[in-house]
């Protein structure tokens, strides 16, 4: 079996198992958990194992694998294929999605134990994974869009998994609607791209070839519209409000959304279209500044949250901001490198948070927890690894990738952006260690020595897999200044903008970044462990606005939700009742009147009937005379 025939298997397996498990669950013939747990985890693991061969082949040779399945649309010369393509970029993504996805699947078996909808959950979960695989393996934007939409659908299903809770349903709807806003941009971008490039086969390779004939204003518009799609999917400002609410779903769902699938799709899409964005660097600036503002604001919001999952949610938004900074300044492989490391440590953090939530009987407020490190060191150690990684402490993965982005930003001359990113890095270290110290090391005075819940072992050892990954993957991108050669950049072979920077300067920048992270950790330590600085949470005048994410969510609610409701109410009262009903009733009454008139004619008097007949005959005769006469 050659490598290219494996591709469709990798993509189709999870979708197929989702279908099988979904139908079995709906039919109600299989209620036990064992079957679903077995199929639901074996399929992703199988996908991960099988995909090793094509990934290795692509990354070692640098050549893309193509797997043409069949023609979908064929109109004249123009065809859209269902075909999969594995190039180095999608190979790296495939590795992230299948590997991290599999680990999260195994973890979910423990987390979801005893839930009524076990089969439903794993059906959705596999659908999610399959959609993401379709998205990253698609060889043309149309098929990618199909995967993109399927990802949106499955996230909707999973966020609204607890369908009996109103908050879940609302969060699911919100995620779906906001993604729709982004999808509109993506759809228009793809359509415009199609119209302006005029390729026969609308594949990424053809588009890259046909780009020369497009003028730069159109390209800028296309790039901007595609980025709107990425904003929606990757929860950047201004379309981020769905991400914190999406925490209403089960924790493994959050882990999957934030690490392997869904939010990374936006970054992947920008990297996929890097050949396009290279033509229009000024759109790249917009991308970079959107990312920068998102990174900073999200880090600020995260510093004031009390819900453990919301802290991590804003943290993801912040880290995605870093990826967009990288992609915006032209360091696509650096952005992808950060995506890779982030997938590991964010999945790790979410899974650790899930374990803590179970531990404290499904409470999520970090100030109601405490002292986990003393009692459950087996959870605290992986969490600490994840926290150090996201803060950018060597040798953990986040250090290399975040540092690479910061250095590249500085080297390409975006000093303001670099400053924003540095402040964001400081806050990142602060908020993650605020979480860590409060939950794990603080004594937890108001919780006392309450009994901690039992945790299934699958939820523990999966943490260690990712913790090891978090330590290891960073070395895929050791920069030249440290004696490495940024392997991942060579593997990805994306059109990175080259920047020249001396090793001394790079060393200095790295040290500054490290300093900032250590300061953040130290501040968190002083506030939450030594309590030498009084904790100002909830007291400062800016705490409440930051806790509510600058009221952006409330603003959207007032303007869009309530506004729409008001317009709908007006339509229901005025337009529907008066205008439409009025028109219909006028017609109805008209028929009634006309009926009365006609009924009056039919009065049974023979003489009257005779007159009608004669009148009709006379008129007919007149008509005939008129026609034949002249």
């Amino acid at each position, binding site marked *: 079996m050659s490598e290219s025939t494996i591709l469709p298997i990798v993509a189709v397996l999870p979708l197929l198992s989702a279908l099988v498990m979904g139908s079995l669950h709906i039919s109600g013939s299989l209620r036990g958990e064992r079957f679903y747990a077995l199929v639901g985890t074996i399929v992703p693991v199988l996908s991960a194992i099988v995909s090793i061969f094509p990934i290795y082949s692509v990354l070692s040779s640098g050549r893309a694998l193509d797997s043409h399945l069949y023609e979908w649309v064929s109109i004249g010369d123009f065809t859209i294929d269902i075909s999969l393509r594995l190039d180095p970029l999608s190979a790296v993504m495939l590795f992230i999605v299948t590997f991290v996805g599999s680990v999260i699947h195994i973890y979910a078996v423990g987390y979801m134990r005893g839930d009524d909808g076990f089969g439903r959950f794993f059906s959705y979960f596999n659908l999610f994974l399959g959609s993401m695989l379709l998205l990253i393996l698609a060889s043309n934007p149309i098929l990618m869009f199909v995967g993109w939409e399927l990802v949106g659908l499955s996230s909707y299903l999973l966020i609204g998994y607890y369908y009996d809770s109103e908050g879940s349903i609302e969060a699911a709807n919100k995620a779906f609607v906001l993604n729709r806003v982004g999808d509109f941009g993506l759809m228009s971008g793809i359509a415009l791209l199609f119209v302006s490039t005029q390729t026969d086969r609308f594949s990424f390779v053809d588009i890259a070839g046909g780009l020369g004939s497009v003028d730069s204003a159109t390209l800028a518009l296309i790039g901007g519209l595609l980025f709107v799609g990425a904003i929606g999917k990757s929860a950047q400002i201004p379309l981020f409000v769905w991400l914190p609410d999406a925490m209403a779903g089960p924790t493994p769902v959050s882990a999957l959304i934030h690490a392997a699938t869904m939010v990374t799709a936006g970054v992947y899409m920008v990297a996929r279209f890097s050949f396009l964005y290279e033509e229009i660097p000024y759109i790249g600036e917009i991308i970079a500044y959107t990312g920068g503002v998102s990174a900073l604001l999200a880090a600020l919001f995260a510093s004031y949250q009390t819900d453990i999952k919301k802290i991590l949610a804003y943290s993801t938004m912040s880290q995605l901001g870093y990826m967009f900074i990288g992609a915006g300044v032209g360091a696509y492989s650096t952005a992808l490198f950060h995506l890779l490391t982030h997938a590991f440590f964010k999945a790790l953090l979410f899974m650790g948070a899930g374990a803590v939530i179970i531990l404290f009987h499904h409470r999520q407020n970090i100030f109601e927890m405490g002292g986990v490190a003393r009692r459950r060191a087996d959870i605290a150690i992986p969490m600490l690894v994840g926290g150090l990684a996201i803060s950018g402490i060597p040798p953990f993965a986040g250090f290399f990738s975040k540092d690479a982005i910061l250095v590249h930003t500085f080297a390409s001359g975006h000093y303001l952006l670099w400053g924003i990113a540095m402040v964001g890095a400081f806050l990142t270290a602060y908020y993650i260690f605020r979480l860590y110290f409060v939950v794990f090391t603080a004594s937890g005075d108001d919780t006392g020595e309450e009994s901690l819940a039992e945790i299934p072992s699958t939820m523990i050892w999966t943490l260690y897999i990712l913790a090891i990954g978090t330590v290891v993957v960073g070395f895929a991108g050791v920069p030249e200044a440290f004696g490495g050669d940024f392997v991942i950049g060579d593997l990805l072979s994306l059109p990175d903008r080259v920047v020249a920077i001396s090793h001394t300067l790079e060393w200095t920048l790295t040290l500054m970044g490290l300093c900032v992270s250590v300061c953040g950790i130290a501040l968190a330590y002083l506030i939450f462990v030594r309590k030498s600085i009084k904790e100002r949470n909830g007291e400062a005048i800016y705490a409440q606005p930051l806790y509510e994410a600058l009221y952006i969510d409330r603003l959207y609610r007032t303007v869009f939700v309530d506004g729409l409701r008001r317009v709908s109410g007006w339509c229901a009262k005025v337009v529907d009742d008066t205008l439409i009903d009025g028109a219909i009733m006028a017609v109805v009454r008209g028929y009634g009147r006309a009926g*009365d008139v006609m*009924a*009056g004619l*039919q*009065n*049974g*008097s*023979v*003489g*009257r009937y*005779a*007159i009608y007949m*004669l009148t009709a005959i006379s008129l007919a005769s007149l008509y005939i005379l008129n026609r034949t006469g002249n």
Partner: protein
Amino acid sequence: MIWNPHFFTALAVFLIYIGIVGLAGRKNLFVIYLSLELMLNGINLAFVTLSRARPDMDPAVIALLMVGVIAAEAAIFLAMIVHLFGLKRSVNSDDFRELADGRSR
């Protein structure tokens, strides 16, 4: 000369008008029947006049055919009147208005 075709045509039209007025205005079935006969005879007269006015026998043939048809029609009509009288003991057309709209009675 007074017996020219114009006179006969005018007479035919006059007969038809009398028939129309009788048909529309009177209620007695016999009178309605007579009015119909009157109109048919008016038409017959018009045909015969036409045949004389231009040397052509076709209208006269039609007129003769119509005499036959009218005779048959008379038999059917009289039979219907007898039957209707049997139904309602009346020859007033206003008594036969079952098809009329109830509201405008």
